[in-house]
């Protein structure tokens, strides 16, 4: 079995699966259960400054998007940072770390945007023996109205400033957690790096309204007939998170900055994809909130087995896909594929036909007996038929062998030619 031992910016854990800062990591009882179940690390739910704790709403905190059979596709929450006294949290952190010295224990922090507040709390965190801190610059609801969380994370200059204070007043590794509620994720990442951050983690939740009650006309979750936007997470946000991770991993200004990946990770496969895009650890929340901590066994066993199948170490996987993330302009326009329908697997539902005929390129023919075939002279290889086909591997894309003529365009397939040199591109440069 491939080892999953992880050293992420000096924080060691027996596997790269950490629980994200969120309700599952709010107190000792939960965190002990998580560690007993096998989680490699925990980012303790965000602590605030000394003083009266925040209060939460006393109505529903979560909204949900269900798939078929009430499968949880996404959860939205309006919970704030920990609503328990700072002393209690610190005492519990110390006790847990003492009993689980091999696990990663990172403390998420969110205090007012002044140097004294940060300095004050950092010393107290160090006393617990925790392995590092994560700066919560991402929370999009509630705290942002008070000038914290996403309100800081949306201003790169603030990120840089606060990160610098943290590195100045603490020797602990510092992870900056980024909000996706921003136009260009690379800017806050660059700011974190300039401020001296050891790593970034992303994504935090996405501002969202999950649904509107069509009887009361209140957004959900509804608190006495009113709703506020919350933060969206779970499987539905994974594609957004993967892109943001990749942007940071491949940008020259942020390349090499360690990343802890977050966003809809539900199985070992999701985690492997984040790792392949450059993440040194991954954080999970919604899947644990949906199924409980027991899922960690599937995640660790699956990732290990995958690495064994590929003959790779975990470090071989890390960042493996990053070189293959590029800009559209560099995609090979001479690479031509055509859809092929396997008649032995086809169940004759006609979804490919409806999709292509109604919404795409009229490239599928329907013959008597409900036989569906691809018209190569019309097929632009868009892949929609593959996507909507209910049978796995029934429709597949096949590359035209280099040298053959694409019957749609009359052009010879093969070789490499991208937009930068294309004659239709007014900005085209002559091939060198």
């Amino acid at each position, binding site marked *: 079995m491939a080892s999953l031992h992880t050293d992420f910016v000096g924080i060691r854990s027996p596997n790269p699966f950490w629980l994200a800062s969120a309700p599952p990591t709010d107190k000792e009882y939960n965190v002990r259960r998580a560690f007993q179940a096998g989680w490699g690390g925990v980012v303790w739910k965000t602590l605030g400054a000394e003083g009266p704790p925040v209060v939460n709403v006393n109505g529903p905190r979560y909204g949900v998007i269900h798939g078929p*059979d009430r499968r949880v596709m996404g959860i939205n929450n309006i919970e704030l940072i920990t609503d328990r006294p700072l002393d209690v949290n610190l005492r519990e952190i110390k006790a847990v770390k003492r009993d689980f010295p091999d696990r990663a224990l990172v403390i998420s922090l969110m205090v007012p945007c002044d140097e004294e507040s940060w300095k004050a709390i950092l010393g107290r965190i160090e006393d617990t023996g925790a392995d590092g801190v994560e700066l919560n610059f991402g929370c999009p609801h509630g705290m942002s109205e008070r000038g914290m969380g996403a309100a800081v994370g949306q201003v790169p200059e603030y990120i840089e400033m606060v990160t610098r204070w943290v590195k100045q007043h603490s020797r602990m590794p510092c992870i900056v957690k980024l909000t996706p509620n921003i136009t260009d994720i690379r800017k806050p990442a660059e700011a974190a790096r300039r401020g001296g951050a050891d790593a970034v983690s992303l994504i935090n939740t996405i501002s969202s309204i999950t649904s509107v009650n069509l009887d009361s006309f209140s957004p959900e979750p509804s608190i006495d007939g009113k709703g506020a936007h919350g933060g969206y997470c779970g499987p539905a946000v994974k594609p957004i998170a993967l892109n943001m991770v990749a942007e940071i991993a491949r940008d020259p200004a942020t390349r090499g900055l360690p990343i802890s990946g977050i966003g809809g990770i539900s199985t070992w496969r999701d985690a492997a994809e984040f790792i392949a895009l450059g993440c040194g650890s991954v954080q999970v929340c919604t899947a644990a909130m949906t199924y409980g901590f027991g899922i960690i066994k599937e995640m660790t066993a699956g990732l290990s087995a995958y690495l064994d199948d590929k003959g790779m170490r975990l470090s071989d996987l890390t960042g493996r896909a990053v070189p293959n993330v590029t800009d559209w302009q560099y995609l090979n326009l001479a690479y031509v594929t055509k859809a092929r329908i396997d008649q032995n697997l086809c169940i*004759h539902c006609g979804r490919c036909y409806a999709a292509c005929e109604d919404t795409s390129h009229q490239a599928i023919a*329907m013959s008597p007996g409900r036989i569906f075939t691809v018209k190569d002279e019309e097929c632009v290889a868009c892949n929609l038929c593959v996507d909507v086909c209910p049978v796995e591997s029934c429709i597949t894309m096949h590359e035209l062998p280099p040298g053959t003529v694409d019957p749609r365009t009359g052009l010879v397939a093969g070789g490499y030619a991208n937009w930068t040199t294309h004659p239709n591109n007014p900005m085209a440069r002559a091939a060198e």
Partner: protein
Amino acid sequence: MTSPHTPGVVAHRLDAATLARNFADVQEPFDHHEARVAADRCYFCYDAPCIQACPTAIDIPLFIRQIQAGRPVEAARTIWDANIFGAACGRVCPTEQLCEGACVREEAEGKPVEIGRLQRHATDAGMATNTHPYERAPATGRRVAVVGAGPAGLACAHRLALHGHDVVVFEKRKRPGGLNEHGIAAYKMPDDFAQREVDWLLRIGGIEVRTGVALGRDLSLDDLRRDYDAVFLGIGLQGVNSLRAPGEDKAGVRDAVEFIEGLRQAPDKGAIPVGRSVVVIGGGMTAVDAAVQSRALGAEVVTIVYRRGQEAMSASHHEQDHAKHEGVRILHEAAPVEVLGNGAAREVAFRYTETTPEGLRVLDHGFKLEADQVFKAIGQTLGELPEGLAASGGKIDPTRLPAGVWVGGDCAPGGEDLTVTATAQGRDAAESIHIHLTGGR
């Protein structure tokens, strides 16, 4: 005290609680969540094969999508637009031979979308609103006579009423509903469902049902043609085939349809006598309904004997499996040659058969089955036709009808003898009559 062990044909073999259980709804209705999950399995196929396989061409993917989107009442409307007996069909259609047999998931994984149960779910929701979803067009002043208050006649009447015509339905029996009311096993339509459906259908208005009136006895086709602007005949099949075997006249030998009808109309099922050893001869739905209900009444040994092979049985696999599950034995390739017994049936003698290119051949060896009751379920016939009608191929010949007369349902050719087929033919005849009466305006 009688029991399943009591010899002869006797009533009250089982206690009331057991009987109630045996005649309870055989089909488990979906609850709301189950229906959403089942609906989600539909692929919303292009030009869907299930629609083509439905004699009434219900837009099945659309109604399933409406269930999925949380609107079962609108789903019911989609069903009823094509098939006003959609609620009955959701219960009794041999779906594996129709929509579900054509479902692409049947081909893909041998487990089709449960269209029948979903249809029942939607129509139950629609009927539970206790409203009738259709409003009649302005009155045309035209009057149409419909003979037979079965699915064909009532589907025709409903569609005609919808178009603003006034309809009088003549029914020979005491209650309307036709085979839905009289010819289908009680456990498929418990709680007087067929009557409730007829009542619901008639709420459209403009339809008068006169029961106890028989064509040929109480009125003639010429009377109807004289008094009405058009006539629709949905008179079903009135006769039954005979065994043509010695001993058929012995006590204990009955037509299965008569047994099924008696059970449907009996206020106390336990009062219906049934044999200890029952033999049902036939291979269709009627044979299964008679056999399973014999078991439900407490018959100890029930055997269906069919003269051809299993593949030739017209009862669906689902029906056959149900019969076997209820403890009915099904024998194939054996033909009855004599009912034995001294006055009352005691045994039935069978000979094995084989299918040859020249047809079915009865061999010279066979077996005997003990039987104190024998049900004949070997097909129904037109019987004696009212004056003015001609038969062809065992059905009313639609090419030789008097002017102004339409025909549909089991008495007419085309399709299987099913509620759904009758409904389609009644509906289509109504559209044809409507065009005839109004020029389609």
